[in-house]
């Protein structure tokens, strides 16, 4: 009978240990990929939100409105030479006719409410696979003339 340098039990234990290690390493790498993807999606959402909020705030400060022009989904910024308006349609936010959000980001909610001379805008964004979302509330002061 031929004599092997290791027994069958030793071989099975070796494969078992290697198999377990392989599965563990696989899980670890999968979780790293998943976590990175998750983090990148969140970063993308935040960047988009920053971009839109910045436009809202800048326009809110430099606008010179003569009266409050806002509905539940539109904010008007009146300038001496015309006006700008933010509005929301189904899943996109626009400044006049320019889309502010990228193709990969959807606008889930855009609510406008007023109290006195202040306008509160609630904005919620979500990513392409609609699994993550981020929201912010910005308050603007509507400058008015007192003639």
């Amino acid at each position, binding site marked *: 009978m031929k004599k092997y*340098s*290791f027994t069958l039990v*030793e071989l099975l234990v*070796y494969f078992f*240990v290697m198999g377990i*290690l392989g599965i563990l*390493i696989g899980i*670890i790498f999968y979780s*790293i990929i998943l*976590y*990175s993807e998750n*983090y990148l999606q*969140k*970063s993308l959402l*935040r960047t988009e*939100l*920053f971009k839109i*909020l*910045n436009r809202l*705030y*800048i326009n*809110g*400060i*430099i606008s*010179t409105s003569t009266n409050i022009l806002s509905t539940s989904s539109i904010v008007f910024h009146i*300038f*001496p030479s015309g006006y700008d308006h933010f509005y929301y349609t189904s899943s996109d936010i626009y400044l006049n006719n320019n889309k502010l959000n990228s193709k990969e980001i959807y606008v889930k909610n855009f609510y406008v409410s007023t*109290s*006195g*001379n*202040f306008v509160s805008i609630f904005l919620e964004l979500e990513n392409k696979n609609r699994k993550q979302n*981020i929201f*912010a*509330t*910005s*308050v*603007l*002061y509507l*400058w008015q*003339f007192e*003639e």
Partner: protein
Amino acid sequence: MNLKSQILIEVLIGIVFLSFLSILIFLYFNVFSKIDLISEESIFVYTKFMNYQNILLGLSRENFSQIEDLEYNKSYFLKPTTSGYIITEGVEMELLKSNQYLIWFEKPSSIGEQDNKKLIYIYIQSPFKAYKNSLLLANIKEKVFNQSQWLISTTSVISANTSSIYYQEIDNITTTDDYIKLLD
């Protein structure tokens, strides 16, 4: 070298490899989760500072005396009402992903105050870091007398973070006959 000692060496190399891997994974998740948290916080802090700045600018424009009447080195926060915002004594508390954030503003003891200008410090205290932002409020009504001047002063702002420059620019408004009459 027999097979058993070879397996032993493989196991040892495996243990060393796994140790390095576990350290890397710990660092990866630890660092990323912190970056994630700071990034999440930054958007909250940005909106809070901007909201407070806008509301305080609005309140000071409507009635500057309520800014002047604030006590020095006392904490105040802005409380929403149906007709706007009111300045209330105390600290605003807000929860963001089970972390508590404190928001308030103070009028520091007459630093930088001159000619109807008031310096305000806005604070945000997060569980990890404290943020501070300064805002210089001016009594615009005493400085701007007609619509053309008002247009110049309000359209001179070019970014959201230039409030102090904006008020400095008001001093440079060219005087008109109305202004001279008022001075007389």
